[in-house]
């Protein structure tokens, strides 16, 4: 969609502010579903989704808020879903881990790690069978690359020349388990894709310019070669795996590791570059923050005043007539 650099910046900032608001209000115990926040990882969602058409499809996993919002998912519906309300994007039946917004092409997210990968391949394969030029992007984490379906999906996508972009957000941890206890030394995720005949890229997931450039190139490759592509991007989760708080005090990460990544905050580093290059002023930032804050406040207000679903919804949507 070729957003301006300002739009990219504020898109990242908006996602950050939404999640900070979730974290702030979570202790009220009204958002009663597990939340996996993307704080620190926003550049990937925004840098990838800026290149997608509305009709292109995105799928994700448990840490999906950023992907949903970057693809244009409705904010009010998302917050209402976290509050379990009937106005939520899945009428309160899904929660944070099952976001959906078909109008914006955000098909689904599921919390079984790796399970959306083959489904996304199937959606993309259907585009190919229908001779439709749209593509599918599936976001996955480093943990998902340990699952069998990851390999099964790479094989089928490559075998059938499926128009799909795999985006691996490597944040080096699955819950508390560091990459080193899960993956053999020398195992390179992008090489796994490459060995299936898939065009693969790697980059810095905290640098939105790089994410954006790689995505542009990958999508160009998918469309011109009618083949899948894979991007592995390094990034880091700032908060606990699930929940609104930090958890660095647990000591499962190396001392200073988080600080190093916070220094590489995708939003702040981009802001510094933009200001230095005279593409953004502090005044513009302040003005936009106000606009975003108002939007977020309205979304939370909407969610809080919305009704809960009635009992009759319990047995609805089990089977389609």
């Amino acid at each position, binding site marked *: 969609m070729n957003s301006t650099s300002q739009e990219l910046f504020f898109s990242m900032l908006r996602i950050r502010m939404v999640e900070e608001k979730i974290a702030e209000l979570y202790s009220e115990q009204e958002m009663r579903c597990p939340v996996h926040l993307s704080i620190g990882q926003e550049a990937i969602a925004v840098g990838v989704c800026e290149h997608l058409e509305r009709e292109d499809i995105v799928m994700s996993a448990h840490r999906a808020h950023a992907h949903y919002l970057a693809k244009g998912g409705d904010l009010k519906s998302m917050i209402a879903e976290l509050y379990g309300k009937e106005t939520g994007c899945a009428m309160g039946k899904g929660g944070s881990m099952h976001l959906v917004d078909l109008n914006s092409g955000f098909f689904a997210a599921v919390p079984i790690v790796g399970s959306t990968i*083959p489904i996304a391949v199937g959606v993309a394969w259907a585009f190919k069978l229908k001779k439709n030029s749209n593509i599918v992007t599936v976001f996955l984490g480093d943990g998902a690359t340990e699952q069998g379906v990851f390999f099964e999906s790479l094989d089928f996508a490559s075998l059938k020349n499926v128009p799909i972009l795999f985006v691996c957000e490597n944040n080096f941890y699955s819950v508390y388990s560091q990459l080193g206890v899960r993956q053999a030394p020398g195992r390179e995720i992008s090489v796994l894709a490459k060995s299936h005949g898939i065009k693969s890229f790697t980059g810095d997931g905290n640098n939105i310019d790089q994410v954006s450039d790689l995505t542009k190139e990958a999508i160009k490759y998918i469309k011109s070669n009618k083949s899948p592509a894979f991007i592995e991007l390094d990034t880091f989760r700032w908060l606990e795996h699930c929940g609104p708080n930090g958890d660095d005090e647990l000591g499962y990460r190396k001392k200073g590791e988080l600080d190093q990544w916070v220094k590489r905050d995708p939003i702040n580093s981009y802001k510094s570059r933009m200001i230095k290059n005279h593409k953004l002023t502090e005044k513009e930032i302040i003005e936009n923050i106000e606009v975003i804050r108002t939007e977020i406040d309205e979304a939370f207000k909407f969610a809080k005043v919305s009704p809960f679903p009635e009992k009759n919804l319990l047995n609805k949507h089990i089977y389609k007539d």
Partner: protein
Amino acid sequence: MRELNYANAIKEATDYCLAEDQSVLVIGLGAPDPKGIFGTTTGLQDKYGVDRVMDMPLAENGMTGVVIGASLNGFRPILTHQRVEFALLSIEQIVDQAAKWFYMNAGQQNVPIVIRLIIGRGWGQGAQHSQSLESWFAHIPGLKVVMPSNAHDAKGLLISSVEDNNPVIFIEHRWLHNTIDNVPSEGYRVPIGKARVARKGKDLTIVAHSYMVLEAIRCADILKIEGISIEVVDLRSIRPLDTDAILNSVKKTGRLVVADNGWVHFGVSAEIISLVTENIFEKLLSAPERIGMNDSPSPSTRSLTQYYYPKAKNIAEIVCRSLEKKLDLNVLFPEDNLPTDIPDPSFTGPF
């Protein structure tokens, strides 16, 4: 009436669906090979092309995800595995994704897929090629489970399954593939969730499904000569279960024997006996009983499978006990003393 065997009835239903609806796809390991999933898919790739009838990688879980994804984007795939057990590799996609998708997104996207599974039996199939796991699938809200017992129903139920807007687990029994029935050549539907009264009777009801329907019918036909009138209810669908058909029959006869195609514990027979005792306990003239596979893995050797699989004679033993009749069942069921690893002489190994 035109006659056709079960395997060809499956093929004819698939052919019909492929012709009627461009969105129907057939995916299965070996679907286009010379043997074509026991003859159920032979020739279909030549007729409909490699994009609609295709082979697949040995990746059951991934391919289940792929067909779910294709179904979300306009297709109606039929995924076929040659044994039930191969689907165990894809339980995650079937149970977590396909079954719950429509619910999780509150009715915005449904998953119209059919997964064909085949229960093996005989010729030494052994523990991993012979399981009847319908109760696993039937346990899950969001799935439908159908198990036709004859060629007519196989064709009509497969067409209904492909046209259904939900994930349907379509379970065939290998020993049914050669059985012949009246099968109209045109497309027709047998509704999912409707049982069939295979034999009318008044003294006792046998509820059965899949291959055990044949044993139940044989039992009923032989005992009829002895003056015992048995009603055989062929479930056809396990989920949704035709509770009315079961209850109406037992209300009439007052006696129930369930001939389960799987193990009895925690299975279909447990469900049916619960249904009957919860709803019409007062109509029962004797305690409901059940029979199913021996509570062990299936052995390979025919010397042991003869004790593993129940037959018409074993059902008859329970019937006689329930009705307090004394009959010489060895005389009445002489064929039940023959080898138990082939259904009839038309089958030669390997299968």
